[in-house]
C-alpha cells in the first residue's frame, strides 16, 4: 500500500470536515478544558497533601504523583486552545463568533498568562521533588530546605493564580461578554 496522492488526502480531509459538526469540534474543546481544569484540581490536592508532610519519602511520593495531572494540564491546555481557535475560525459552522471577538482574544491572552504563571510555580515544586527524591534515599530525615520549598508561599501563589486565571477563562466562555 503506497502513500495516497495529495489530492486524495485533501479530499478525505474535506469529507471529514463535512462530516464533523460543530458539536464534534466543541466536544474536543470541552475535553481539553476538562483535562486542563481537572488536572489543576488534582495538582492542588496533591500539593496541599505534600505541604502537610515532613518525611522526604512521603513528599517525594506525593509530588511524584503530580506528574499525571501535569501531563493532563499540558495536553488539556493545547487541546482547548487549538480546538477553541478552530471553533472560532469555522465561523460558518458556529455563527456570530470570530477569532477577533474581544472575549475570545481576552481568553487567549489569559491562556498565555495562566500557563506562564503555572510553569513558574511548577518549577519550584519540581525542585522540591528532586530534593525529596535525594533525601528519601539518603536517610529520609526531615529537612528545613525541603519544607521551605514544599510550603513556598511564592509557588503556592503562582499556581493558585494560574488556576484562578483559568477559571476566569471559563467565566468568559460561559458568559461570552459582547457576543451576539
Amino acid at each position, binding site marked *: 500500500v503506497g502513500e495516497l496522492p495529495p489530492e486524495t488526502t485533501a479530499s478525505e480531509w474535506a469529507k471529514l470536515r463535512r462530516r464533523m459538526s460543530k*458539536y464534534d469540534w*466543541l466536544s474536543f474543546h470541552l475535553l481539553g478544558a476538562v483535562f486542563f*481544569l*481537572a488536572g*489543576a484540581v*488534582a495538582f492542588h*490536592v496533591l500539593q496541599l497533601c505534600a505541604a502537610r508532610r515532613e518525611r522526604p519519602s512521603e513528599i517525594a511520593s506525593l509530588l511524584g*504523583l503530580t506528574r499525571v495531572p501535569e501531563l493532563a494540564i499540558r495536553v488539556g491546555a493545547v487541546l482547548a486552545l487549538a480546538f477553541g481557535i478552530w471553533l472560532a475560525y469555522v465561523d460558518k459552522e458556529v*455563527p456570530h463568533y470570530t477569532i477577533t471577538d474581544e472575549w475570545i482574544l481576552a481568553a487567549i491572552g489569559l491562556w498565555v498568562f495562566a500557563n506562564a504563571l503555572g510553569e513558574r510555580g511548577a518549577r519550584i515544586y519540581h525542585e522540591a521533588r528532586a530534593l525529596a527524591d535525594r533525601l528519601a534515599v539518603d536517610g529520609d530525615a526531615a529537612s528545613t530546605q525541603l519544607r521551605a520549598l514544599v510550603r513556598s508561599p511564592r509557588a503556592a501563589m503562582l499556581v493558585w493564580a494560574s488556576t484562578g486565571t483559568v477559571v476566569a477563562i471559563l*467565566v468568559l466562555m460561559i458568559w461570552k461578554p459582547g457576543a451576539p
Partner: protein
Amino acid sequence: MLAIFGRPETWNWLLMFHVLTAFVLVGASLVVTSASLMAARSADQNLVTMLRGVAFRTNLVLVLLGGSLAEKEYPDESRHLAGSMPERASALSQASSRGYC
C-alpha cells in the same frame, strides 16, 4: 448541548457551578486512582498507609461532594431560577433560529 448553546442568560450561574464541580469530581478521581495504584505497588508500609489516607480523604471530601453536586444539572426547581416558561421558550426559539439546536 442545549445547556451550552441554547440556554437563557439566567442559567449561566448554574452551568458554571455544574462545570466547576464536574472538574473537581474528575480531578479528585484522578488523585484517588493514582494514589491507590501507587499504594498497591509500594512496599513501604508507612507510605502505603499515607497514600491510602490521601485516597480515602480525597474520595470522602471531593469525589462524593463533587459527584453529588455535579449531577444536579438542571433540577425541576431550576425553573424558579431560570425565569418563566415564555422566557425559556423564547430563548429556545432564538437558539433554533441561529442554528444552534
